[in-house]
């Protein structure tokens, strides 16, 4: 995945995070993760997981938590 694509994924994930932030730190990560699961194709999800793996530069804290949850969800599936 190119740098541009990776930056874009981070931007998009943070945008999603900002919407769900109003639901609070307890429930927002799960809601963000569910949104990523439902609307992002597997390649994009793998891309954001890899970005987190590589340090997750630029990701908002709530979104980091959400991507951790996404990893768990994908592992279960």
């Amino acid at each position, binding site marked *: 995945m190119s740098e*541009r*694509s990776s930056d874009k994924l981070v931007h998009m994930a943070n945008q999603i995070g*900002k919407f769900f932030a109003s*639901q609070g730190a307890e429930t927002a990560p799960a809601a963000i993760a569910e949104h990523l*699961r439902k609307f992002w*194709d597997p*390649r994009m999800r793998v891309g954001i997981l890899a970005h987190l793996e590589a340090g997750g530069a630029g990701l908002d804290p709530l979104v980091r938590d959400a991507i951790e949850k996404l990893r768990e969800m994908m592992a279960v599936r």
Partner: protein
Amino acid sequence: MSLIHEIDYGTPRSKAETMVTLTIDGETMTVPEGTSIMRAAKEMGTAIPKLCATDMVEAFGSCRLCLVEIEGRAGTPASCTTPVLPGMVVKTQTDRLKRLRKGVMELYISDHPLDCLTCAANGDCELQDMAGAVGLRDVRYGHEGHNHPNPGLDESNPYFTYDPSKCIVCSRCVRACEEVQGTFALTIAGRGFDSVVSPGMEESFLGSECVSCGACVQACPTATLTEKSVIEIGQPEHSVITTCAYCGVGCTFKAEMRGNEVVRMVPWKDGKANRGHSCVKGRFAWGYASHKERILNPMIRESITDPWREVSWEEAIAHTASEFKRIQAKYGRLSIGGITSSRCTNEETFLVQKLIRGGFGNNNVDTCARVCHSPTGYGLSQTYGTSAGTQDFDSVEQSDVILLIGANPTDAHPVFGSRMKKRLREGAKLIVLDPRRIDLVRMPHVEASHHLPLRPGTNVAVLTALAHVVVTEGLADEHFVRERCDWDEFQDWAAFVADPRHSPEAISELCGVPAEDIRAAARLYAGGENGAIYYGLGVTEHSQGSTTVMAIANLAMATGNIGRPGVGVNPLRGQNNVQGACDMGSFPHEFSGYRHVSGDETRQLFESLWGVPLDSEPGLRIPNMLDAAVDGVFKGLYVQGEDILQSDPDTRHVAAGLAAMECVVVQDLFLNETANYAHVFLPGSTFLEKDGTFTNAERRIQRVRKVMPSKSGKADWEITLDLAHAMGFDMNYAHPSEIMDEIARLTPSFAGVSYAKLEAEGSVQWPCNEKAPLGTPVMHIDGFVRGRGRFMVTEYVATDERTGPRFPLLLTTGRILSQYNVGAQTRRTENVVWHGEDRLEIHPHDAEQRGVHDGQWVKLASRSGETSLRALITERVAPGVVYTTFHHPGTQANVVTTDFSDWATNCPEYKVTAVQVMPSNGPTAWQEGYDEQSRNSRRIAPLVEAAE
């Protein structure tokens, strides 16, 4: 087939519920109170002679031909202006009436040229008919009437002529322009024999404010206003009822034909979306169907720098399938995908997504709703449980307050715009939220109570401020909320919006709207009996598009404006079948009926019917496909009826994505801009050449009927079918009705839809199923589809697209009345006389600061790119805001727009781009280079016959 003659009842139908019984010519007749005698007689089967009356406008009573006798009343009143009364006894034919009518007709004919044999209306002239009806055999006053010397034919309008010598001054055209269209462009100038229909201040039709809707032409009883196509071809001999292929209003038309040639398109009175009205596009702009640039043979080429080579259908289909298979073998199953078309039928769209899911084996399917109303689908499904508007168009007739947000119906949805204007003239109040001063803000007989010219990108802040006023001033409908919505979620939301940081005073500076205007608008909307919200792409095409839709849904719920006629949340859809394309499963994450691909039960239902395993993971959306192409992992694309290079944002990125693919297949009418990057071109068919259905913005499913053979030999659904077979995926249908049967089997909201039902009912609105066998005009009547209405907290988040010293202005884009979308159709009609190029609207203050003159070339630059176009200096836009359309590929307005998008759906943020404007000498180097590339890309080598 025969010519369909609609019955003209002379005056409009009364909507009264009280019935009145009277006697007409000895027969007893019962009709609604308020019905005219003329209409009652016609409903009984008796046609009283008439000239100035027609049921598309109110009675006028000027021609004095429709006189009747009423027992107990003196004189001979006009039957068109006399309402029925209980016990009334009417005679429509007596010796006295016969004498009077004959006398009236003598006067008309004495002043009318008797060139009937060569008149364009010969065979379709009401004056001729009435002369016959009253038995006119002689004209005592001679035939050398005052008007015979032709005072001048007006041929300025590209679609119809005005011949004053044939005018009988019945005022039907004037009244149609006022009552039906609401433009008030016509009047009667002069007095007595000098009376004449006058557009504007005695201007030509083209030079006046006439919008060419055609209502005047339709109303004219003679050849005074006549379609040029009728003058050229002659009277039609048969007609077919079909649905317009332009905007999401979905007007029903009679295609009036002579053989396989369209003579004219006439709006059909029984059309439930348009109620007999039309606009300049649907009524007149169908000539593109036979335009010389139509591509009628399939074409292929190895490289996008090669000329096209015409080939047989067999070769084109085999080549495409072979390429897609090769790419999948080399790069994997997920390396190809497709785009369904919102201009094609439901059946065609359904087949494309079926081919991709079943034949390509992935969910890489998307549609142009991605770039327009995808946030509507997301936002309304989250709050109400369904991805569509809540009302039918008739609902506006019962609205008391209309809140119009980011939509310009008089330009983009003109027929509905006329219906809205009619309701406003009747007294409904209007609030406009729009950065531009659209026509509805102030026009003849319509003026918005409040115009909130908010700064682009601040929709959520303003809507939350409106909600703040509703909640803090006790204007919420607590009874409705307690009964219909989740009370806890409402309380959370109410606490959120009530926070002082959301007050109009707090956000006024941010949005640029005075706080008192926001407060007044909120009070008006919440205080009206029936408050209706209509919105367009000014809501959805933002980085917070989905949030804005949810804020709208919140506002309607909080004020109890859901679940009955006159209220609701109404997205005005852009393209003719964008609602249908979404319904048919065009999004990569869901099957038809908005069911997620990960749902095992749903997926198994499709798998068992289609006979193939289906992917449970969502596929790529259009922007994601392009990103993946640039990354080198997405290599093949099947595009049916969409021009992503011109319509999608950040043109350079779209071009880079397309250029990185190994097989781009474009199926369209013309070599569009996307085809510059295509390797295969499959010639599509117009809506005139195929059967199917479209679903309009009010969820109404309507038939599209073939009126002529396909010029390329195949309807679009047949091409997809052939491609599926070549890919080894078994699909078999003999007619689109069989595809609809499959849609109904697989889609709960379409379960009751069939061609037989559409024939019987004319149209139905989904959901149409066992619970609602005749469809659902108004949704959420007894409860929301999701159960309880869900309030969502809508925190305002500023877009990342910011103005600054380099790019100090905000660009917003949109469309104009005479053009449609990327202009592929309308640019190939006479509509170019109204809009031959995109212009940049700029406020006089901003223009003066930059030394820009009206009509001058200017460079429009953003962080993404730059283009040049001519300036139009106008106060329609606020200082700091500029506006343009995207109808012309020479401009390529989307070179300038960015790839910022809605957080939930990736719908592009077309409505907010930071730009700079400066004088220039003409097109940019990029535009000139693109023009050369386009011309090279459209070279075609002729078809080589196999025998040679």
